[in-house]
């Protein structure tokens, strides 16, 4: 065995971006579907948006934007060999991500209490346009929530790797790629806020 180490950080980042664009196409399809349905049922979407808690949506936007900031600051800290600071930023990101999920949990449970959940008897009594609105709401915010859970799991592993020096000043491509994923989760939410919570 020689000490020959092959590294291609540029290729690694390109691979991550290629994965991210497949995610954008997946979510993009749903956004296009949303546009058509909103065009078809404008009044029902307006009314459906009024049923959502805009304040919680805005708070969650601030939470996710801040978590995006702390991830990118963790990368800066690693680049500067400030390990403790990098770990603090990653812990903050994990905390903010969990906060997002808790708020989302409260929001969804309130909807469930009002008989608004997929295949609910009450939902079936609403006009077709509102059924479509809530169908898209649960599908898109649910898929986004799944991405938040995956992102948090990845970030937890990255935090462990920073703690054990597997990620360090001269080798932090995994943190960059994990950060890219988390930022995409943020970008998706940036679009979900006006489409659902501010629709009314």
């Amino acid at each position, binding site marked *: 065995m020689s000490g*020959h*180490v*092959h*590294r*291609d*950080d*540029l*290729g*690694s*980042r*390109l691979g991550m*971006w*290629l994965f991210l*664009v497949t995610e*954008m*196409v997946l979510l*993009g*399809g749903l*956004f*296009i579907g949303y*546009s*058509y349905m909103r*065009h078809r049922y404008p009044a029902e979407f307006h009314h459906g948006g009024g049923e959502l808690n*805009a304040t919680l949506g*805005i708070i969650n*936007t*601030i939470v996710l*934007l*801040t978590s*995006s*900031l702390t*991830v*990118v*600051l963790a990368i*800066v800290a690693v*680049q500067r060999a400030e390990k403790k600071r990098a770990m603090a930023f990653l812990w903050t990101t994990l905390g903010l991500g969990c906060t997002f999920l808790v708020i989302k949990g409260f929001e969804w449970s309130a909807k469930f209490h009002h008989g608004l959940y997929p295949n609910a008897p009450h939902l079936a009594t609403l006009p077709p346009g509102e059924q479509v609105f809530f169908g898209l709401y649960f599908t898109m915010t649910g898929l986004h929530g799944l991405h938040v859970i995956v992102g948090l799991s990845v970030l937890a592993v990255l935090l462990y790797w920073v703690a054990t020096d597997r990620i360090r000043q*001269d080798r932090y*491509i995994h943190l*960059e790629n994990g*950060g*890219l994923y988390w*930022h*995409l989760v*943020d*970008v998706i939410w*940036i*679009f979900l*806020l*006006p*489409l659902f919570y*501010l629709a009314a």
Partner: protein
Amino acid sequence: MSDHSGHTAEHPVAHPGYGTFIGIWLLLLLLTAGLVSLSHLGQTAAVWGLLILTPLKAGLVFYYFMHLKYEGPLFKIVLLVTLGTLLIFFALLFSDVAFR
């Protein structure tokens, strides 16, 4: 050459500091406040806010937080081709809807 460390070999530029990203974050919060304010001004203002401020916010995250500003043209092309493809699908769908 087997050690392509990316930023060092191909991007000799200095890494941006904490201040740059905190500035972008403040701008993102400001744009969010603008978006929410516009949504209270009526349907037309809300739609314009959605069409202008939302892509602007996403663009800032892509360009700064996701480091696209510091990448080569290939990364930008990959993203633009993807967004262009989605736009074509969007246009095709609505051109169909318009003539029904």
